[in-house]
């Protein structure tokens, strides 16, 4: 009986796993399964056990399937460097000056406009992120938030809290105020290994 699907059983310890992912039907005891290229293998459910598999009988198809499965599940592991601190620590004053400079340069002359502010906001946050990355503090992840708020006599309160490594993580804020709007940039840097 030739099954509809071609089932692959490359080695005994991965047989059950493959069955789960590739096969919804449990083969019956007397089912014979076909590999490329045209070798007959008995089902793993037969009582007398599986025939010994030699490397040549591994189908190209079967091997690549297993490889892709393994690589998709594998997590890259790096060797230990035994380094607890970054080479160049995050320097808040430098970042603050740079962010302030970018804000004033981009926004000093502009007026608040509902449509353009969206793009302005996005592009400023990307520009600040690129600038901070270029400063070259190693082993840091950054989060940059930019707010543009139209002035119309209302009040706003912005507060932030965090759970992080007090010794190595830091944050910086920069503000730019014009007649029609206020803009605020918040940059946080988190150390990671």
């Amino acid at each position: 009986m030739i099954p509809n699907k071609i089932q692959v059983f490359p080695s005994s310890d991965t047989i059950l796993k493959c069955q789960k992912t590739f096969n919804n039907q449990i083969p019956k005891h007397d089912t014979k399964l076909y590999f490329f290229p045209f070798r007959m293998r008995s089902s793993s459910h037969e009582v007398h056990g599986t025939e010994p598999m030699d490397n040549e009988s591994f189908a190209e198809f079967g091997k690549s399937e297993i490889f892709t499965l393994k690589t998709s599940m594998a997590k890259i592991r790096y060797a230990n460097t035994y380094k607890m601190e970054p080479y160049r620590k995050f320097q808040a004053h430098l970042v603050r000056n740079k962010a302030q400079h970018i804000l004033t340069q981009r926004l000093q002359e502009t007026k608040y406009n509902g449509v353009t502010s969206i793009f302005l906001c996005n592009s400023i946050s990307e520009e600040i992120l690129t600038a901070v990355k270029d400063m070259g503090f190693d082993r840091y992840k950054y989060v940059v938030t930019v707010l543009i708020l139209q002035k119309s006599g209302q009040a706003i309160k912005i507060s932030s809290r965090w759970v992080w490594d007090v010794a190595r993580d830091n944050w910086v804020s920069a503000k730019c105020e014009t007649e029609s709007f206020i803009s605020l940039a918040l940059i946080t840097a988190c150390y990671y290994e």
Partner: protein
Amino acid sequence: MEEFHPHSDEMTFNAEEAHNIVKECIEGILGKVDYNHNKVNQWTATIVEQSLTHLVKLGKTYKYIVTCAVMQKCGAGLHTASSCFWDTTTDGTCTVRWENRTMNCIVNVFAIAVVL
């Protein structure tokens, strides 16, 4: 020697869970009140601290940054944008917007994975 892996190899930020947590915090604090300039300080601080406490209670090895903006409703425009430089497989963000008759509230949660 075996390396210690507290969780499975796949560790991703669950944005939905964070969204629910933060939404409950906001509704508990701002649910039935109108904008009050004297109390806003206290409200924002409480929202952020409570959200943070609940997020930490999830027990995952993440660093959290929670930002809350409460604005009086006045017809004015507010735009926020954020860009992040991190590991997209493990880190994530979640934004919760909430409003009532007199005010708008925006809460951003950023979660950054810690590798142990």
